[in-house]
């Protein structure tokens, strides 16, 4: 029977790992992630979860232990934030290069220096090119559902790649929300027992990830790109299948809200997408044709969906909770790249907001939209990147 619980996104991530019947968890504490693995520690010690929790001595070892466990044939999970994720960086490449379907939640936190414990996407977006799938969630239900969906997707033989499920620190990680947890038997039907693409096997003594000469390396990279493209097709399918079984869907690759007739589309990620919907409703009441498109999956990037959104819109406004220093927000760059080859394409204005946890409310987003609408009418984007609510 479906159970409704009220809990934080971090605890919900723990519930999801339990529901996915993860066998090995290796993790290291870091704010704001820590309560994910505390929850799992409780589950493991109480016997509610039949798994081994390896209390490793660093995040680097956490990821490598997951690599080892997945290679030895079990479903694995870990969770981290910010500097922990950065410390994993090298191992993230190793996990995807080894084609191991590890799932990790990232409770997003801004990178130091200076120290910050509050959210932005500088941690996970800095890992953009590691070959991991990246999901960004807007609420706690989505965190649960996405973890389950991620295992299904990553363990598909067309994919065999790892995934990070990102949730903004504190905004979601420590915020209580009601979440529906489906019946375990139904989850088991949706998510069959673990099956990786390969396994360490004494009867089949292969050398895994050994030295590859230039004759072969490019083909391995090409296969990862192919898997990413396959994932792009599978994500909406899996989201729909999940909806049919459990009643929730989260928009597949991009959650679109009132985009069909919109002149201006606000492009966001994570919880800013929820605020954007309220902003859209307010603007619609004022007669402005505005829509919201929350990019739920950043890798693989939903180029085709963005292309479709560009068909009718006159203006895109991207809101990035992150900056690639010396350029602009990552989302802005990706959106521009996605539609560059279109004959008719909307104007694109990039906004930076909410870095280091500064609040981004529907009011903030409303202001962004109004400025964008003005630029749209003027036919000219005055500023390529605008810092929102920056102290003067």
């Amino acid at each position, binding site marked *: 029977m479906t159970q409704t619980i009220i809990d934080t996104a971090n605890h919900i991530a723990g519930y999801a790992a339990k529901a996915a019947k993860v*066998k*090995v968890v*290796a993790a290291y504490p870091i704010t704001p992630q820590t309560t994910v693995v505390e929850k799992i520690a409780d589950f493991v010690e109480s016997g509610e979860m*039949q*798994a*081994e929790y*390896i*209390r*490793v*001595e*660093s995040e*680097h*070892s*956490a990821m*490598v*232990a*997951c*690599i*080892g*466990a*997945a*290679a*030895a*044939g*079990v479903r*694995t999970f870990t969770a981290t934030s910010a500097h922990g994720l950065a410390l994993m960086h*090298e*191992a993230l490449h*190793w996990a995807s290069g080894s084609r191991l379907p590890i799932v990790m939640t990232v409770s997003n936190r801004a990178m130091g220096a200076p120290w910050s414990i509050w959210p932005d996407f500088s941690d996970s977006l800095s890992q953009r090119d590691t070959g991991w799938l990246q999901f960004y969630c807007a609420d706690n239900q989505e965190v649960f559902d996405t973890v389950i969906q991620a295992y299904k997707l990553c363990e598909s033989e067309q994919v065999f790649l790892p995934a990070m499920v990102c949730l903004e620190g504190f905004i979601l990680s420590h915020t209580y929300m009601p979440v529906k947890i489906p019946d375990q038997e139904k989850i088991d039907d949706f998510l069959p027992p673990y099956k990786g693409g390969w396994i*360490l*096997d*004494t009867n*089949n*003594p*292969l*050398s*895994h*990830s*050994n*030295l*590859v*000469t230039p004759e*072969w390396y490019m083909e391995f990279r090409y296969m990862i790109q192919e898997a990413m493209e396959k994932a792009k097709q599978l994500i909406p399918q899996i989201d729909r299948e999940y909806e049919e079984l459990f009643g929730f869907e989260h928009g597949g690759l991009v959650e679109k809200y009132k985009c069909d007739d919109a002149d201006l589309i606000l492009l966001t990620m994570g919880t800013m997408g929820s605020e954007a919907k309220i902003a859209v409703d307010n603007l619609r009441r004022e007669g402005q044709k505005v829509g919201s498109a929350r990019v739920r999956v950043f890798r693989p990037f939903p180029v085709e969906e963005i292309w479709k959104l560009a068909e009718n819109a006159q203006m895109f406004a991207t809101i990035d909770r992150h900056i690639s220093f010396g350029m602009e927000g990552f989302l802005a760059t990706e959106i521009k790249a996605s539609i560059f080859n279109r004959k008719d394409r909307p104007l694109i204005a990039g906004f930076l907001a909410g870095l280091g946890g500064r609040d981004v409310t529907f009011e903030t987003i409303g202001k962004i939209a109004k400025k964008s609408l003005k630029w749209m009418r003027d036919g000219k984007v005055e500023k390529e990147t605008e810092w929102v609510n920056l102290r003067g």
Partner: protein
Amino acid sequence: MVTIKELPKEEYLLKGHAACAGCGPSISLRLLFKALGNKVFLVVPACCTTVIQGTYPYTSFNVPLQNILFESTAAAASGIVAALNQRNLEDVTVVGWAGDGGTVDIGIQALSGAAERETNFIYICYDNEAYGNTGMQRSGATPYGAWTTTTPSGKRERKKDMPLIMAAHRIPYVATACPSYPIDFINKLRKAKEIKGTKYIHVLAPCPTGWRYDTSKTVEMGRLAVQTGLWALFEIEYGKFKLNSPSDRLVDKTKRKYVKEYFSLQGRFRNLTEEDIERVQRWVDEDWENYRKLSSNSVSDLASCMKI
């Protein structure tokens, strides 16, 4: 205790491997497989064995091998062990096989963590006393006075005592070995296999390429390291220290060869002065005084014994 005649005929290190001529680590690998058979998952970080195994799509090992990041042998092994526990697969021995740089320097954190967690695996450091795969740079295991490409006039610091660092973790089994004494090494591996928990074996593996001696002299070089007392063969089983043959006969200083005999045969020690050699000889004698105390002490907890 096995004898040379009882060694398995099977070879799991196959022909065509890419080791240098006279490679001490590859002799050690061959012995490792003979001792443990093929029910082994081998975890190998960046090290000479990355090359020795051969390049994709080939392998010269007849056991499954997980290549892993430089600093993370013991972390990968931890994950594998946990997965095997979950799968109730009890007949596979997980072996971490790492060089000295990957053990005493960049990998010490993961190894210390795995040992503290009592991870059930065998960790072997094959020590050629420098970063061999990258062309002989100084490591924490490089001995005093040795030339490396990053210590062109010779290292000015002493070798890190990794076996005793591991003993301080109170793991059930710590041992030293050398491929010049194959039976001793094999017996230690077989003993380690039967013990539950973290087992650490530190193998001094002579390297003609880095140590600058003739490729035919590898076994001799290992023997000299032991005979001079620069490398002692011992084991620490559940905290109890024991010198093994032939090191157990070398407690008396007069039985040990002079360290100069070892140094004079290796190009890497060319820059050692007489004063340096005297200094090393003094350190060796001090180490052996410590070994004597450790051997004669019957306390079960080595950590307290070491405070003597």
